[in-house]
Structure formats: structure tokens, C-alpha cells
């Protein structure tokens, strides 16, 4: 079935809300004014911002919950990160100390080996010198 745009305009002509609409509205306006006076003033500076949220309590609750969750998660993740980082640094330091200790141990063993070798070298030479027979000494060397 065909219809014209005029038909549509006719169908969507403005309607009046009926008697008492304005009175009922002003009654609510006056009530809200009285309530506002009775309560502590919502800061006018942020009034527009706050009133938007006050009319959408579900949104406000959701946003606050999300913010708290974000802060909580963020804080937890940060503390986990810090903890992990501290552990990592401690492990690195521990590993470094361990490496240094092992190096020192190896150095000590090598040093004592050198000391042993040189001591025995000197003792051996001294002993050989004490030998009365040069020939025997030469053979031994």
C-alpha cells in the first residue's frame, strides 16, 4: 500500500500532552527545589557533571565499581610486579655472589696448588743440593 510523505507527517503530527502536564511538572520542580534546599548543596561548580551522574545511579555505581576494580587490579599488579622485580634482583645478586664465591674458591685452590708446587720445587732443589754426589744429583734432575 502506498503512502505519501504527507501521510507520514500527518501521522506524526505533534500532540499535546493534555491538561495539567505543566502543573504536574512544576509541582515536581518545586519539590526538587525544596529537596535541594533541605540537603547540603551539591557544588554548583560541578553541578552539571554531578547531576548527570546523579540521574544515572546505575552508571555511577558501575563506573565507581570499575574504577575501584581498576585501581585494585592495578595496585595488585603493581605490587606483584614490584615483588617479582625485587625477587629477580635478589636472585641476580645471589647468582652474582655465587659466581664470585665459586671464582674465589677456584682461585684459592689454584693458589694453594701453586704454593704446593713451588714449595715442593724448592724443597726438592734443596734436597738435591744436599746430595754429596754431583752425578747422582744430575741424574735425578
Amino acid at each position, binding site marked *: 500500500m502506498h503512502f505519501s510523505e504527507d501521510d507520514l507527517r500527518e*501521522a506524526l503530527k505533534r500532540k499535546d500532552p493534555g491538561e495539567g502536564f505543566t502543573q504536574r511538572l512544576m509541582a515536581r520542580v518545586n519539590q526538587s527545589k525544596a529537596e535541594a534546599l533541605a540537603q547540603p548543596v551539591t557544588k554548583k561548580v560541578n553541578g552539571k557533571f554531578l547531576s548527570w551522574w546523579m540521574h544515572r545511579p546505575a552508571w555511577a555505581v558501575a563506573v565507581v565499581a570499575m574504577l575501584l576494580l581498576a585501581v585494585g587490579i592495578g595496585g595488585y599488579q603493581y605490587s606483584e610486579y614490584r615483588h617479582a622485580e625485587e625477587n629477580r634482583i635478589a636472585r641476580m645478586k645471589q647468582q652474582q655472589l655465587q659466581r664470585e664465591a665459586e671464582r674465589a674458591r677456584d682461585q684459592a685452590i689454584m693458589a694453594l696448588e701453586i704454593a704446593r708446587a713451588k714449595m715442593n720445587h724448592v724443597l726438592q732443589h734443596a734436597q738435591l743440593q744436599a746430595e754429596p754426589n754431583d752425578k747422582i744429583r744430575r741424574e735425578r734432575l
Partner: protein
Amino acid sequence: MEQTAAFEDDRLKLALTRALTGDAQAFADLVREHQGMVFSIAYHFLQDRSLAEDLAQEVFLELFQSIDRIQSPAHLTYWLRKVTSNRCIDQGRKKYRRREMALEEAPEPVTASGHADPMLLDRLQQSLATLPEKQRMVVIMRFQEGLGPAEIAEVLEMPVNTVKSTLHRSLADLRKGLTRKIREVRYAFF
């Protein structure tokens, strides 16, 4: 004509200025000036008188609290259309499913004027109710408020081309819906 329009504009400017100072009477004047527009948008969208009145009251209450943001009578009209359409769309998404309305659920018949067929107008409104929310509001802004695509785009925060294609599609959908309805009625009776 021009003088009348200018006079009206001055009157509204004065009412707005006084309303900004907290003059309740001036605010009530503004309400009376725009209540038809706000109510009609809500009514044609929600197809429910009491819901539409509640929504319209909410819009004006919000206006009362945000009156200091209004810069001019034109801005006031724009603001009312924008807030009303947003609230309607939100309400529609919460409560409405796209559905075929039964004949008995149809809203009260439009007062016919001129040569318009009342039943046609009735069917048109029923078909309108089956459109998706944004599409429905585009049609209302176009054919109730007489806004052009650019103005509709600004109020509904849509691209202009989207408004145009939506209008085109909406009219096609309305025709389709109307044809189906007529057939159903015929089958019911015959």
C-alpha cells in the same frame, strides 16, 4: 509574518533569561512552549501515552537542572530534541523488542485532517513502532519535526550520509510493513 516570528523569538529570549535567574513562571512558559514537541517525540517513539508523559517530564526536569547551559531559544530547542531522542532510544532499547503490533494494541487513532485515511495513519504508526530505535527516531525527526538530514545528523550524532540512507531504508521498511499489515487484516476479515 517576519515580525511575528521576531516577536516570538524575543518573547522566548526573555522567558529564557528570566528562567535562568530562577523565575519559575518563566520556566513554566518555556515548558508550555515546548511540551508538545517533547511529548510528541516520546509518544510517537514509545507508542504509549503514559510512558511518553513520564519521559517528557523527566526531560523538563533535567532542563530545569541544566538551564544555565542553555544559550538561546534555538539552543533550547536543539537541546530538548537531543535529550528527548536520547532518552527515547535508551528507553526503547530497555523495554521494546521489534515486534509486530496486534491491531488491538494500536495507539489511539490520529485525528485525521485533510484527506488522510485514518486507518492508514494508524497503520503507519504501527509500522513505525516496528522500526529499530535509531531508524524510528530519524523518521520522527524528519516528519514530525521537519528537520533536514544535516540537522537530524547533529541531533542524533550520526553522519549525514547515514541519516539519508536510514531515511530511505526506513520508508522502504514502512511500506513493506504496511503492506503486510493490510494483508493480515484482509485475511482476518475475508
